[in-house]
């Protein structure tokens, strides 16, 4: 049946060669496009502690160690490359470890903080009282107490980067991927009940050519029904998905 094994082998080699040639541009594009690779991770923080296992941070972050790794690794890419929402359960867990610190900062709002911040204060207090959400620092420019010291977090791993995991986890990391470096596009997907993964921005850090709206001196970027604001994260400027302006 196979009377010409030599020809068959040659054809296979040619086909393989064509395949390599045809895929080469993709490889090149990935290699030189700068897209897709996350710059994050526990080592990027360069802390003398790796965070270890902080039980309250189950699956909320991007891999600074401990038993969280197992559950995180599968979703790591999606979290890092995509916009996602926060897990309410994770936030609730984080709430306990942060609430006392945040309460201190809440008390220090100065009189010159604008009314929007006061609104945020009220909302945060609501979340504190019902205990359902992690409450990160209030937006803007609240003055922390003099000689503010992260005493309640003085547990030898404050420099691990795990705190960053605890914040607006999916959103911030997704937004990091949404920086201007992100070039490739990924399909929208849902990873679980609490994490919504949006398409990775094709360029410019947003998933679309966003419309810009300025409301009360705040710039919003709109893609469809989703609004974003630019913010400064641990990896630089990022876009944060936010609720529509009031």
């Amino acid at each position, binding site marked *: 049946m196979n009377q010409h094994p030599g020809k068959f082998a040659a054809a296979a080699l040619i086909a393989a060669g064509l395949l390599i040639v045809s895929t080469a541009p993709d490889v090149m594009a990935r290699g030189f496009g700068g897209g897709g690779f996350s710059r994050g991770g526990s080592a990027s923080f360069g802390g003398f502690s790796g965070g270890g296992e902080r039980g309250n941070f189950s699956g909320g972050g991007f891999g600074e160690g401990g038993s969280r790794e197992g559950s995180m690794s599968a979703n790591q890419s999606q979290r890092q490359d995509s916009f996602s929402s926060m897990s309410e359960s994770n936030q609730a867990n984080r709430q306990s470890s942060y609430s006392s610190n945040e309460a201190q900062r809440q008390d220090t709002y100065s009189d010159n903080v604008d009314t929007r911040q006061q609104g945020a204060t009220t909302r945060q207090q609501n979340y504190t009282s019902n205990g359902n959400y992690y409450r990160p620092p209030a937006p803007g420019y609240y003055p922390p107490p003099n000689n503010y010291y992260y005493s309640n977090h003085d547990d030898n791993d404050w*420099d691990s980067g795990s705190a960053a995991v605890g914040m607006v986890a999916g959103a911030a990391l997704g937004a990091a991927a949404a920086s201007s470096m992100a070039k490739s596009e990924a399909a929208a997907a849902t990873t679980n009940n609490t994490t919504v993964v949006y398409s990775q921005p094709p360029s410019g850090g947003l998933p679309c050519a966003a419309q810009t709206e300025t409301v009360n001196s705040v710039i919003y970027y709109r893609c469809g029904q989703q609004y974003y604001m630019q913010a400064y994260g641990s990896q630089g400027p990022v876009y944060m998905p936010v609720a529509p302006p009031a």
Partner: protein
Amino acid sequence: MLMKKKVVVLLCAMMGSGLSLAQVATDSATPAAATESQQAANALLQRMATNLAGAQRFQVDMLASYDSVQADGQKIEFSEKRQISLERPSLLLSETHNSDGTADFLLFDGKSITVNNTQDKVYARAPQPGDIDATIKYFLGGLHMRLPLAVMLMSSFPQELEKRVIDISSVEETDILGEPTQHLAGRTQDVDFQVWITTDNRALPLRIVLTYRQAAGEPQFRANFSNWKFNPSFSQKMFQFEPQPGARELPFAASFTQESVTGTGTASPATSGEKP
């Protein structure tokens, strides 16, 4: 029958300076004593930390790289070059050139924290009166920002090491970056670290490698230090922030609330900070 059990032993390796090392010994029926070599290693580590902590001002260049473990397990190395200028109690400037060509800096001026991205012409500021130690803790723990090896900049560096280091040993004497050094290897609860310290009186760290052994892929952070200066001339202008023309002020990402991110509840976005 000898029953194996985990024994946590605190060994106080009392050296000349009265510094201690907490060492964990496992699977041992009897407490293990720190060897002379371990005591010497700890003493050198503490001397290095004490020297840095006691320095009123210094400047150093840091060439760092770190592994970023991708979802598929592939490790990608990124690098950055920093120049760190510090003057206690409250002034710190860390200027960074990242491997992707971007540049940014972090400034503590005793009144506020400022981060600035030159390429994107954006910056963020937060009030933070206080010394460098307090500001670093707030910057990392409160604002969730990034400052690699931040603990080395703190006046409490020796105490931070005491609290964290559970094992320290001397590996070898070796030349690195053109200087004779002692290569030490130590462990914290979840990080293995190696540090190369000059063997002269300065006890300067020339290289540090951190391995996050509990993180997926065991990524590393590596840094080489050069151009240590302990009497640099700083102009006060160095620590004054002047926004670039056209720069926009952004809020810190840490300031975004759950509701502002997801739009849940009756929320309106967490605002303020961004000024066109």
